[in-house]
């Protein structure tokens, strides 16, 4: 395009879609211009467009499903097999392993740190020979489709800071979440559904579940339009979606037509381009009133497909039902779907609760991978599974062969990824025999986030937003892409 024409084009767009508040100053503007692929400012983007005109990198995944296990699932009982620990039952964790690392104040007062070997059996699965515990018999069948990172680590030792950290790149509230960054960078691909959707699942562990916070899918300083929209299992699937009682879709259409005409008159009188945007947003709202109910209506799914996700798939709000909804959203090109599953904070009675929790997720997440794969969607959809930290090898509270609890362990834990951009069947990173320290290829949560962005075609160092004079990014000033797990 002729540069002058392009300039004029941008200027016009700026006039039409301007006025969303951004913190970009003259200098910042100049610096943003220097980056290929970036729009001039967020103010220049049309509703639903991302700030990047094209991804920085080849986009292996267009969408992402993030299965978030809130509370910190035990790597020791699921994936990080430590056979020698059997001989260490009820023996003290050697000081040479702990090396004075800080503990939560829930166990720092314990007189002993007795080792609790996992009571569950492990087997190697698939061609890749990945170790998977008996708690996940279904998942074992897709072992070759996923890639495990056993050396994920973080600094935060308690839930609130840790989950805020992995979701937003910072332990304190105030920064945008991963999904919000994706919406900001890449925008929407569907003009009748939001770019970022969050689902909350019921859980079975018999314990107080850790809290979640709206900041985990919030936008921090990014414009709030990028916030995750909760898709709810009770009431309106999207807040305020239904017309009030006594208002039909036809009546709503009539009102919207009159509203648009009146707004157009206002636009003519005042010349404010924002009015046109508002008219468009009312139209999208109207479309959502049809597209969302269609999305959540699973009656058209075959029994074969439902069966993949297990019997709970028909109970709204279960992890199974949410996994199926995730697939339906991916089909409709929702950019980012995040499913939260709570109840993994197993300080005591871990064997009882982890059985209940894995029963919730095993078949549905396996079904999700198979379903995506059979539809060819796994090729360009990234699936991520994990929590905010891992759990300790030593027991918190009572220790018997079949009953123990585990405290928070930020120094190493396991996550897995599958789909677009990921090399399947890889196990990356290694922990010591106590699953206490990383001994090979540590992957910080910033590295993990950099890798997720990478799969979506984003250079994590180049997707930034100027706030309070600083160019912020999801990975703060850290993060290295984990190339070993990439296809």
């Amino acid at each position: 395009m002729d540069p002058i024409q392009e300039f004029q084009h941008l200027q016009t767009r700026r006039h039409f879609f301007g006025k969303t508040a951004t913190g970009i100053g003259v200098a910042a503007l100049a610096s943003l211009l220097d980056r290929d692929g970036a729009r001039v400012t967020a103010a220049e983007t049309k509703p639903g467009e991302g700030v990047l005109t094209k991804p920085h990198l080849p986009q292996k995944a267009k969408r992402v499903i993030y299965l978030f296990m809130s509370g910190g699932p035990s790597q020791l009982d699921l994936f990080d097999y430590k056979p020698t620990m059997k001989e260490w039952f009820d023996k003290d964790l050697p000081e040479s392993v702990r090396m004075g690392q800080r503990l939560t104040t829930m166990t720092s007062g314990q007189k002993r740190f007795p080792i609790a070997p996992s009571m569950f059996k492990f087997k190697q699965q698939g061609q890749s020979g990945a170790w998977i515990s008996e708690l996940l018999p279904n998942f074992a069948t897709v072992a070759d489709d996923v890639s495990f990172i056993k050396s994920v680590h973080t600094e935060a030792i308690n839930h609130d800071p840790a989950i805020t950290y992995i979701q937003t790149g910072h332990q304190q509230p105030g920064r945008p979440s991963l999904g919000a960054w994706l919406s900001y960078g890449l925008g929407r691909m569907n003009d009748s559904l939001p770019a970022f959707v969050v689902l909350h699942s019921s859980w079975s562990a018999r314990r107080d579940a850790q809290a979640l916070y709206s900041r985990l899918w919030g936008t921090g300083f990014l414009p709030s339009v990028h916030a995750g929209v909760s898709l709810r299992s009770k009431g309106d699937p999207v807040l305020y979606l239904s017309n009030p009682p006594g208002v039909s879709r036809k009546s709503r259409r009539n009102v919207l037509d009159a509203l648009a005409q009146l707004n157009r008159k206002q636009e003519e009188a005042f010349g404010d381009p924002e009015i046109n945007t508002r008219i468009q947003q009312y139209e999208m709202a109207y479309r959502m009133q049809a597209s969302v109910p269609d999305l959540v209506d699973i009656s058209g799914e075959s029994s074969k497909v439902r069966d993949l996700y297990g019997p709970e798939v028909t109970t709204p709000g279960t992890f199974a039902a949410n996994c199926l909804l995730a697939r339906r959203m991916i089909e409709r090109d929702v950019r980012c779907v995040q499913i939260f599953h709570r109840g993994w904070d197993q300080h005591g009675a871990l064997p009882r609760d982890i059985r209940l929790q894995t029963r919730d997720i095993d078949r549905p997440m396996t079904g999700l991978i198979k379903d995506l794969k059979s539809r060819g969607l796994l090729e360009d959809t990234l699936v991520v599974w994990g929590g905010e930290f891992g759990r300790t090898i030593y027991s918190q509270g009572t220790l018997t062969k079949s009953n123990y609890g585990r405290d928070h362990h930020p120094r190493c834990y396991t996550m897995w990824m599958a789909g677009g951009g990921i090399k399947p069947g890889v196990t990356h990173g290694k922990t010591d025999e106590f699953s206490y320290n990383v001994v090979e290829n540590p992957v910080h949560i910033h590295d993990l986030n950099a890798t997720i962005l990478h799969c979506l075609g984003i250079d994590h160092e180049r997707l930034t937003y100027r706030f309070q004079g600083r160019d912020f990014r999801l990975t703060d000033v850290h993060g290295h892409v984990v190339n070993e797990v990439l296809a």
Partner: protein
Amino acid sequence: MQRNFTHVLLFLGALPTSVASAEAPIDFNRDIRPILSNTCFHCHGMDEATREADLRLDTKEGAFADLGGYHPIVSGKSDKSELFRRIVSADDSEKMPPPDSGKELSDAQIELIRRWIDQGAPWKGHWSFEAPKRPTVPEVKPTATSGNAIDRFIHERLASEGLEPAEEATKEALLRRATFDLTGLPPTIEEIDRFLADDSPDAYEKAVDRLLESPRYGEHMARYWLDAARYGDTHGLHLDNERSIWPYREWVIKAFNNNMPFDQFTVEQLAGDLLFKPNRDQMIATGFNRCNVTTSEGGAIAEEFRVRYAIDRVETTGTVFMGLTVGCAVCHDHKYDPISQKEFYQLFAYFNNLAEPAMDRNKPLPPPTLMLPTPDQQEAVERYKRQIALLDKAIDAELASIDYSDPAELVAGEPEPREYVWFDDSLPEGAKPLGNENEKSWRFVGGPKYPVYCGKSVATRKAKSRSQHYFQGVEKGLLIGESDKLFIHVYLDPQDPPRQVMLQFNDGTWEHRAYWGEDLIEWGEAGTVSRHHAGPLPKQGEWVRLEVDARTVGLKPGTIINGWACTQFDGTVHWDKAGIVSAIPQGEEQLASLAAWEKVLKGDKKKLAALPKDLQNVLKVAKEKRSDAQKKTLTNYFIAHVHPDYRDFFGPLAKQSKEIASRLDSLEKSIPGSLVMKEAPTPRDAFVLIRGEYDKHGEKVSHGVPAALPPLPEHAPKNRLALARWLVDPSHPLTARVTVNRYWQHLFGTGIVKTSEDFGSQGEWPSHPELLDWLAVEFVESGWDVKQLLKLIVTSSTYRQSSRITPEKLEKDPDNRLLSRGPRFRLDAEMIRDQALALSGLMIDRVGGPSVKPYQPSGVWKAVGYTSSNTAVFKQDKGDAVYRRSLYTFWKRTAPPPSMATFDAPTRESCTVRRSRTNTPLQALVLLNDVQFVEAARNMAYRVMVEGGDSPDERIVHAFRLATGRRPDESEVKLLRQAYESQLADYRSNPASAESLTKVGDSPRPTDVDVAELAAWTTVSNLILNLDETITKG
């Protein structure tokens, strides 16, 4: 090259146009510093740790330094300047910024730098660090709209850009704008009519004065401030339980309504507790720095959070009062602004000494707090306390006259065992009779048909196989002592003898059994205390005393039995007079013995726990180790509350005292409190925290302020009060500028400095620097008078312009930064809801009080809440609470009210001085469908039907005026009438729909209007509430 050419154009397009012309002088601070800051300071700036090549470009000394024969910048000579040589170098190893830095200079920027150097490279300190001086007000050609000094600054700039100011807004638009800006609400139709009718030249000024005096003004201004103060009704982290700090919100409202000078406003919030004899309000004001989020998560390390809170307080204070991002210096020296890491921790020192436990314990009032009784409540508290004291005094006097000695200890040595009868002709007090015939199991019969051992009657039982009568639940049970024996008398009928008799005792369980005769009753375990064989069947036909050694049935000394069972297998048995042989006083006598009472307590955890704490503590001390005072406490309590002889005297006194105490307790619970600041008695040392980590202490630091800012006065105390006073010293370059800029932002949508949170070198250059300084100086000289400042701005002709955008202005001033027209932007979340409440007539305009919970879709809290958090389940309030202004809405920070968050209300987890302003489909859904907006629409509909005249057109005009302040034109009326008519037809043919729509919400549906009409007007009102014009301040 083509790419770069685009950049030049775009860059110039975004720059102040004056720079675009080649010869215009370059302003270092406006044009050059931002480039250096963004591109160079990261490696050649303040931060020593990351400084490369020992070169600083953030100071004049550094930029012109002799680097051994060459200089980064040589004034007037770009070709001799190393800096310039490096930025244009084609050699990647020399080029600056380095290609791998991710930073790049555009050709336009390079050209600017060249021209600046060639123009002499004039260097200035960063503008916002130099105290503002009152600039000369520009002389401009008077126009029809020139008003006050503000306009002359604005008009001068407009003229230089070849733009004319806009005409004045219509009177309706102006009044609506000012009413929203000063009160957060729309004007009423009466107010509009009065204003339209007032032709006097000062009509507008009078309206502004009226608005500034409205109590709604303080509420509206407070709402902005509460974003900055990060006010919330929950702690914000982990459990996110409720917090009680609403009295602080009330303080803010009051401060604005009373027009408290901003310097005082600052000092009281930052350091009210340190003022000389602070009054209650000054203490409440310090809640500003108790609004930060806190935690009590199990496992959290207290010091880590104590440090985080202090950092938050420094950052918030920095942002709100100085517009500085001091938080960038937590881990290292600031990359852009002159704030070293050490200086950050010197500021930190001011907030490092709070008497605040880091864990909030999930309580509503984590200390330090202040309780806030009303004068009446205070008086009642004192009265109750006085009454209790009087009673105590009477009790003490009587106690002093009693010389108590324990009957159990009167006899020297071991007291002799005595027999105590527990039951004879009737069951002990409180016993619940039970057995084979339930409550009728105890058959007390008298002679002469039956043998009676003692008294008038005997309990008789005739049985086939196992049968029993028993009781349990006796309040004054038998207290078992050393080698005590339990006894009963039995008479076995020789005509019908039983095969077995059994006694069972209950001390919480029945597992204490003794039997005589055969072993037929299979309870318990044979050969143990739960089935002890005590001997053969007693002799028939005569009274025999059965005795059980308490130990043989497992009743240890100190236990109390409060149930007893008489069981037999076959036959007829008469049971009479049972009890205990014990050295311990029993029954009433027991109550006269302190020693016995203590034993009772040892066996009864519940009773013990019900005693006052201090008494429990005394009881924990071994008898022989008690001090005289402890003994006295115990004895006194015993006499006053337990001993039967004194009951008549102490009983009523104690009862009265207890009653008053409980009244006092519930009164105290109803008294609100608020979180406040308070210094800990011993100062805590402050350190530089290496990389910002709480447990990595570096150099020890003392209180201080950044060197780039004015110094503290000599001998300034090392406390927050000194810091607060320093902030509002007229010589401070930032506080007044930052403050007036924020008010400008409220009114115009964008500040004179757009980055209202950042006045540092990464912040945006002011659109009107002289105006900003003029306003700042004016503000300080007025005595920091906020109302006067607002009046000055809203009466300027700049503010009064029409917000209509011409194509020319859209081209030259797209974002209205030049103020070539009046402000036009969407209302904030709270204003949109408050407007709907006001237009519907539902709004309750009471000022202040605790937060309220209006409508919210169910499940919003539950989806995220910690299961046992006290904010996991949302319970909507009823009545007035549903219709209060939005600043009173309960703010749960981990799940803020969704209808507000959708309209960009912040979560209040951290300080926000500038909200984003988005335009989304979810907003449309809220306005169209949220119960509170639908309910408002139907109440507005009713109002329109009642007030608006009889014809549809009249009503449309009324509704339209309510919402937009103006009369609709004919085509608008027509559109709305068509909408109304088609809706009416629909609802006429579908009465059930009309019925449901007009029932939405808690407010009653009026019965005096036609339902279909009401439904149609509801839809029309809903439409009007959704108009862009309605939700926009234009």
